[in-house]
């Protein structure tokens, strides 16, 4: 929360919140553009945005989940399951049905996760851990461990198509973020989510339907994961029951946390997640182009993550807030 003091500390902390990540992104792009001729092509910059969308869109749902004080680590396996189910329907029912089924099914699975968490009162981490195993094995069994290919032009367009020179995936990502930010900042729902994440008991006492909010949040996770899965599957031309979504949950959590949302819950930075997704994508791309030894890349990414969260901590301290 913004304190009504105008000391330097507060100003820095606030400005970082608003401009820190975009600034970092700009610096990153500038550095790599300067170092690598191929990086600074329009083609490359736009192509990266397209890939950032796969993480970005999923991060919206995950951000809401984390803001409400929970996690969902089943998203990777969920992505695989809904992807193979939706894609397998395409030959018989066409691309539109396939896409819709994927998204609806993901939403339903998110809802299911939410039911387990709210009704059975099992901590989200464990529930989604168990569901992760189940979704993944369901995907294997359904496809007998064979990838499902997508050749439908409608579906492929959603990931690869270009509208007026801008890849559709980017338009979709911007739209999703707009919706997400609107929900968060301009609706009671958004306020309730933050309230639940900040202090569940206080929220409940003040009349908020905590269970309902949590249910909605997990459903949102499913919805956005579904959309992201559609885009990813379109870009890859297939869904692989074993490989699709591996590590996806951690990519999403990384983007959300890098974006400035605290893991302990409470107020978060959705726009930050947007920039964080882009930073990660551009960083990977830039390092690759400069032929940086991939082993060093591992080290670099770990350090970036700790740095980013450390900066968040620093910001909280600067604002004089105690850690939640």
């Amino acid at each position, binding site marked *: 929360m913004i304190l009504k003091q105008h000391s330097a500390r507060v100003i820095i902390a606030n400005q970082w919140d608003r401009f820190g990540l975009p600034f970092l992104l700009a610096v990153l792009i500038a550095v790599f553009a300067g170092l690598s001729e191929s990086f600074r092509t329009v083609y490359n910059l736009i192509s990266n945005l397209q890939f950032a969308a796969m993480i970005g869109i999923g991060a919206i749902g995950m951000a809401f989940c984390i803001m409400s004080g929970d996690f969902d680590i089943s998203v990777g396996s969920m992505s695989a399951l809904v992807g193979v189910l939706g894609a397998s329907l395409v030959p018989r029912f066409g691309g539109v049905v396939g896409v819709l089924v994927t998204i609806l099914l993901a939403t339903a699975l998110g809802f299911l996760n939410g039911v387990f968490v709210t009704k059975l009162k099992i901590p989200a981490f464990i529930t989604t851990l168990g569901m992760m*195993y189940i979704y993944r094995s369901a995907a294997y069994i359904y496809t007998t461990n064979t990838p499902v290919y997508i050749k439908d032009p409608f579906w492929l367009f959603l990931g690869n198509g270009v509208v007026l020179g801008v890849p559709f995936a980017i338009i979709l990502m911007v739209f999703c973020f707009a919706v997400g930010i609107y929900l968060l900042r301009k609706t009671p729902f958004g306020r309730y989510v933050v309230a639940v994440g900040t202090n569940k008991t206080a929220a409940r006492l003040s009349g908020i339907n905590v269970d309902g909010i949590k249910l909605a949040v997990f459903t949102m996770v499913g919805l956005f994961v579904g959309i992201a899965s559609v885009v990813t599957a379109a870009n890859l031309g297939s869904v692989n029951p074993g490989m699709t979504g591996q590590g996806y949950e951690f990519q999403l959590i990384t983007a959300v946390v890098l974006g400035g949302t605290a893991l302990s819950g409470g107020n978060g930075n959705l726009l930050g997640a947007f920039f964080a997704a882009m930073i990660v994508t551009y960083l990977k791309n830039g390092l690759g182009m400069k032929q940086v030894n991939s082993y060093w890349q591992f080290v*670099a990414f770990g350090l970036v993550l700790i740095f980013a969260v450390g900066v968040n901590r620093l910001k909280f301290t600067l604002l004089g807030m105690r850690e939640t």
Partner: protein
Amino acid sequence: MIKFLKLYERFGIFLFILVGFVFLSLASPNFLKMDTLLNIIAQGTYAAVVGFGMTLAITSGGFDLSVESVMALASVFLAVFIPRIGIPLAIVIALAAASFVGLLNGLIIAKLKVNPLITTLAMQTIVKGVALLVTGGKMIVIKQKQFMELGTGKTFGIPNQIYIMVLFFIIFYIILYHTSFGRQVSGVGSNETATRISGVNVDLVKIGVYILIAFTAGLTSVIRTSQALIGMPSMAAGFVLVAITVTILGGTSLTGGRGNLWGTLLAALFISMVYYGLNLINLQIFYQMLAVGLVLLIALFIEGLRVRYLQAAKAKGIRV
């Protein structure tokens, strides 16, 4: 009902083991052999030893996602140092390296106050990179064959790793339940602020926890590496989930404060039985995953019941 749930908390996993045991005995003639049973226990020791560390970590309210990379690092150090300074010293160095990573984790979590999820996740990536850099991406073959005795040998007919597992079970049991450190760990897990206010050096406790779990990862790696005699920078992929699963299946509460070491041990044996047994009857990967997932859900469901009933009982004033 409450009685049942309390019983379940202590012995629930026994039920699963019993069911699985009976099923597999009927399903495969080769199951009830001494060799097979010993192997199942032996194959369960890896998840068990790391599970002990993970139980400690989760009891303290955190967890450690970096165990895979720590295992890889220890494996690599073994391969590099055994030829140079002999097996015993190399093992010491490998364990020290593993513990050092644990120290780093603990410092970052306690002093920099970075969330354990992020810290250990980031450390996982960093240590992986380090292991790869040390070996240049290659696997290093260990030519000193005597090393193999550790993980493959038997003493009095029982595989060595079972002795190691029992030894460390006893050690961790004492630490968790019979030392003030153990009580402090539970305290930090259930209510960190209260524990801090009561004068406990929470930071030191956390650092100790992370060093211990990294140590168990290193130890498991020593056993595993001695079996394959290869120092592998890319070892143990996916292992962290197994470690977390056995801990949770064993009944350790994820909210911290209640560590169930017995449960972890039994859960590790159970999972080993599932994988081994299903392979014996040729029901492979998918079904094994499904089995684990289902068991986890059932365990969670009962855990959920337990929490609700206990809460309701407490609210009514019934002593539990």
